[in-house]
C-alpha cells in the first residue's frame, strides 16, 4: 500500500524506461504481458497453420514453405521431426505463453488491483520481476527453434524417456534442454505473479470491499492463483530432475536396461511414471488456473449486457472454491492406461467426475444469468456467450475422458485434442477476446471498431466449434493424436476427408484473426475516444478515468458500499449503481 501510494506527479518525473519498460505499475505490466502474449500467439497460430496444412494435405509439395524452412520442409514435404517440433511448440506456446500471459498474468495484473480498489499490486517490484522473467522464458523458448536438432519434439507433456534421451528424437537434443529451462523460468515467474495476486486480494482491498463483494473476476483470479502456487512447484522440481537426467547422469525417470538405437544405456532404477505424476500434478490444476479466470470474466461481462445481476453469485463463488480443491486431487485421470494400478484409476475416475457437479452448477448459473435479461449484443457479449457455449460442449467431453472405462478407448486420440481445445483452448480464447473488447476502452482510452469486431466473431466461433467438435469424432473413430499423417493405417483412411474439412475450417478461423489484429492495432491509434464507463458497468475500474492514471484512483481511494452486480436498479446515472455509490442515493439490494 505505502509503496503503491506514489502521487501521479512523481510518476511523471520518471523517464520513459521506468514508465513503460521497467515499470512497476500493474497496468503497464498487465499490458506488457498482453502484448507479449499476443505476439507469442502469432507464432502459435503460424504453427497451427503448419500442422493443419500437413494433416489436410499430407503429401503435398510446399514450395514456399521449403524456401522458408529448408530443413523442416526438405524436398518440399514437411519432415516428421519438424512436425513433432511444431506440435510440441504449438501446445507449449498456446498454453503457457499465450493464454497464461494474456488471460491470467495480463488481465490478472491489469484487473485485480483496479477491481479491489488498490493503487497497485501488493508487491510492485516483484511484479516487474515476474514479467521480465516471463519475457526471458519466452525468448529461451523461441531460441530453441534455432539450435541443433530443432525445438523440443516430445509433446508439451515431455514424457521421458523420449524427452530425456538425446538419441530418441532429434528435438531431445539441446531443444529439449532449452524447453525445460524456459519452463522452469516460466514457473518461477508465474509463481511470483500468483503470490502477488493472492497478497493483493488479501491485503490491499479498498475500504468496504469485503470478500463477499468481490467481483467474480477477482474471485476466479484469487482461486486460480492459489492453485498455481500449490501446483507449480512440483513441476519446477520435475524440470530440474529431468535436466539432471539429461545432463548429470541421474536416473530419476529412467529405469535400467534401456536400449536406444541398439545402444544399452547406463541408466538404472528410475520410473517414467514419476514424471507423469509430477507433470499432471501441475498439469491438471493448470487447466483450472486458465479456465477459472475465463469463467470469472464471462460472469462479469454478461450482466453489463443483460442489465441484471448474475445468477447465484454466492453459489458460484463456492463452486470456484470446490473446483479448486477438487482439481488438486484428480491428476491421475490423465494416466488411466499408463500402467498405474487400476484401483487408483477408479479412484481418479470417481473424484474427477465429482467436478462435474460444481462445474455444471457454475455453467447453469452463467446460463441463468441471461434469464429475464435484456440482451445487448455488443462484441464482448458475443464472446462471453461463446464462453458459455464452449464451456458446455467442452465440459461434456470431460464426462467421457474422466470415465476410465470410456477413456480406455479415447485416451491419446483426437477426442482428447478436441476436448482440451474446447476447454483450455476455446473457453479461454473466447474469454480473452471478450476481455480485450470489453476492457480495451479502459486500457487505452479508445474503443475498438464494433463492425470489425462482429465480423471477427462470425469468423471465429463457428469455425472454431466445427474444428474441435469434429476432432472429438475423429477420436471416437480411433485416430491417435500426434500422428504426422493418417496415411499408414487402413482403419484411418476415411478420417482423411474429415481432416481436410478440419483444415479448411482452420484456414477460415486463422484468416478471421486478421480482422482482430487489424482492429486492435488500428484502434490503438485511431479508435473512437472512450468514456470512463462506456458499458455502464458497476465494478471499480469503471469509476476512474480511461485509461486510469498512475495510482488508479486520482486523489482518493474508492470506498465500497455494495456488491459488484447492482444492475436493474433505479439510480441517477441510469439502471445501475457502481460499487462506490453510497446507500443513501441508491438502496443496497444484496
Amino acid at each position, binding site marked *: 500500500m505505502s509503496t503503491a501510494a506514489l502521487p501521479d506527479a512523481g510518476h511523471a518525473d520518471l523517464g520513459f524506461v521506468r514508465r513503460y519498460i521497467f515499470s512497476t505499475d500493474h497496468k503497464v505490466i498487465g499490458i506488457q504481458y498482453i502484448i507479449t502474449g499476443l505476439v507469442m500467439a502469432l507464432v502459435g497460430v503460424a504453427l497451427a497453420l503448419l500442422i493443419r496444412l500437413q494433416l489436410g494435405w499430407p503429401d503435398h509439395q510446399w514450395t514456399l514453405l521449403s524456401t522458408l524452412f529448408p530443413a523442416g520442409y526438405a524436398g518440399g514435404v514437411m519432415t516428421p521431426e519438424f512436425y513433432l517440433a511444431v506440435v510440441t511448440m504449438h501446445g507449449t506456446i498456446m498454453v503457457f505463453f499465450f493464454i497464461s500471459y494474456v488471460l491470467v498474468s495480463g488481465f490478472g495484473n491489469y484487473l485485480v488491483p483496479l477491481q479491489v480498489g488498490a493503487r497497485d499490486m501488493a508487491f510492485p517490484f516483484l511484479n516487474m520481476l515476474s514479467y521480465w522473467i516471463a519475457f526471458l522464458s519466452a525468448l529461451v523458448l523461441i531460441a530453441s527453434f534455432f539450435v541443433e536438432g530443432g525445438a523440443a519434439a516430445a509433446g508439451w507433456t515431455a514424457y521421458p524417456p523420449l524427452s530425456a534421451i538425446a538419441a530418441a528424437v532429434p528435438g531431445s537434443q539441446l531443444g529439449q534442454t532449452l524447453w525445460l529451462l524456459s519452463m522452469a523460468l516460466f514457473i518461477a515467474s508465474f509463481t511470483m505473479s500468483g503470490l502477488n495476486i493472492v497478497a493483493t486480494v488479501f491485503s490491499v482491498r479498498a475500504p468496504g470491499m469485503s470478500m463477499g463483494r468481490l467481483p467474480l473476476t477477482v474471485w476466479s483470479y484469487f482461486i486460480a492463483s492459489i492453485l498455481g502456487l500449490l501446483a507449480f512447484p512440483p513441476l519446477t522440481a520435475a524440470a530440474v530432475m529431468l535436466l539432471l537426467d539429461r545432463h548429470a547422469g541421474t536416473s530419476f525417470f529412467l529405469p535400467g536396461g534401456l*536400449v536406444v538405437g541398439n545402444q544399452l544405456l547406463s541408466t538404472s532404477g528410475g520410473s517414467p511414471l514419476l514424471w507423469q505424476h509430477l507433470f499432471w500434478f501441475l498439469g491438471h490444476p493448470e487447466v483450472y488456473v486458465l479456465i477459472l479466470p475465463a469463467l470469472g470474466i464471462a460472469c462479469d461481462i454478461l450482466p453489463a449486457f443483460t442489465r441484471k445481476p448474475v445468477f447465484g453469485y454466492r453459489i458460484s463463488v463456492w463452486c470456484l472454491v470446490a473446483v479448486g480443491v477438487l482439481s488438486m486431487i484428480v491428476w491421475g485421470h490423465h494416466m488411466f492406461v499408463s500402467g498405474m494400478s487400476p484401483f487408483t484409476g477408479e479412484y481418479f475416475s470417481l473424484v474427477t467426475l465429482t467436478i462435474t457437479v460444481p462445474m455444471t452448477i457454475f455453467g447453469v448459473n452463467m446460463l441463468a444469468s441471461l434469464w429475464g435479461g435484456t440482451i445487448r449484443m455488443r462484441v464482448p457479449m458475443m464472446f462471453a456467450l461463446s464462453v458459455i457455449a464452449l464451456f458446455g460442449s467442452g465440459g461434456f467431453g470431460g464426462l467421457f475422458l474422466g470415465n476410465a*472405462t470410456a477413456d480406455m478407448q479415447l485416451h491419446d486420440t483426437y477426442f482428447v485434442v478436441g476436448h482440451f481445445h474446447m476447454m483450455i483452448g476455446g473457453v479461454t480464447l473466447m474469454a480473452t477476446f471478450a476481455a480485450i473488447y470489453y476492457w480495451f476502452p479502459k486500457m487505452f482510452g479508445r474503443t475498438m471498431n464494433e463492425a470489425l469486431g462482429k465480423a471477427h466473431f462470425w469468423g471465429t466461433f463457428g469455425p472454431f466449434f466445427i474444428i474441435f467438435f469434429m476432432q472429438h469424432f475423429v477420436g471416437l473413430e480411433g485416430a491417435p493424436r*500426434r500422428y504426422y499423417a493418417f496415411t499408414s493405417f487402413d482403419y484411418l483412411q476415411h478420417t482423411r476427408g474429415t481432416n481436410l474439412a478440419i483444415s479448411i475450417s482452420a484456414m477460415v478461423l486463422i484468416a478471421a484473426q486478421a480482422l482482430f489484429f487489424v482492429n486492435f492495432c488500428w484502434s490503438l491509434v485511431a479508435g473512437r475516444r472512450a468514456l470512463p464507463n462506456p458499458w455502464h458497468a458497476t465494478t471499480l475500474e469503471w469509476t476512474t478515468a480511461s485509461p486510469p492514471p498512475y495510482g488508479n484512483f486520482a486523489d482518493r481511494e474508492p470506498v465500497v458500499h455494495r456488491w459488484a452486480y447492482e444492475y436493474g436498479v433505479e439510480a441517477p446515472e441510469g439502471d445501475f449503481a457502481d460499487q462506490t455509490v453510497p446507500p443513501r442515493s441508491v438502496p443496497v439490494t444484496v
Partner: protein
Amino acid sequence: MTPNTPRQILESSLVALLFASLGFGGVWYGAGISMPDLASRHGAGIDAMMNYLLLTVGVLFLTGYVALAILIWRGARRRAIGARLASRRTELTLSGALGVGMALIAEGGVLAIGIPVWAEYFDPSPPADAVVVEVTAQQFMWNVRYPGPDGVFGRTRPDLIDDATNPVGVDRADPAAADDVFTINEITVPVNRTVRVRLHSKDVIHSFFLPHLRVKQDAVPGMTPEAIFVPTREGTFEIACAELCGLAHYRMRGFFNVVSQQEYESWLRDQGTP
C-alpha cells in the same frame, strides 16, 4: 437503457440461430459416426459405456445449446428486465437439483456400467489356458514372443540385445528359451480364448492400441503391464501406437490376427525357433 433497434434484434437472433444450429448440427453429425467394428468381449461393455455417454451427453448438449439460443432470442426482444434477483431458495433448489442430477448421470454411469467393465479388463485371475504373448515395443516396431510348448519364456538380459540378431535379448543359455517363438509386428491368437499381452518397452513409452478390440495399454520401460482380453471375431486387426514415441510413431503398425483354434495350433507348429 434504450430498447434494441430492429437491426440489433436481427443480429441477436442470428447469434441465437448460430448456437441452435450448431446444437442440432452437432447431434446430427455425431449420430452418424461410429467406433471401429467391435471384436472383443469386454469391448461390448466399453461400447455400452460409450453409448450411454453419447446418449446422455447428446441430450444435455442439445438442451444446453437450445436453451442458450432461446434465452438470447427472447432477451434481445425484451424491453425491461423480467427478473432481477432470484430468491436464495430458488438458487439453492436449482443448484441442488443440478448437483444431484449430474452426480447421478456422471458417477452413476461409472458405477453401474463402467466399473464392471474395468473389473473384467483388469481380471486378477485370468483362466489358466489363456494365451500368453509377450510384446516388446521399440522404436518403431512390435517384437512378439510366445513361450512355445513348454509354456515358459526364456530369460532375457538387456545387455544381450542386438537389433539384428536378438531384438529382445534372449539368454540362449536358458533351456526355456529354446522353444520360444518370435515374430515381428504380427500377433496371432485363437478366437474366443483369453489373451494376455505382456507389455515391455526397450526405449521410450509406447502404447499398445487395438482400436477394434477396445484395448489400449502403455508399454513403459521398466514396467510389465498386461492387457487381458478375449477376441470374439476372426479377422486381421491393426495395432497402432498411441503414445508419442518418435519420428515414425505415425506408422508404428502391427497386425493382430484372430483365427480359429485349429488354425492357431497349426500356425504355432509352423513357426521355427530363431
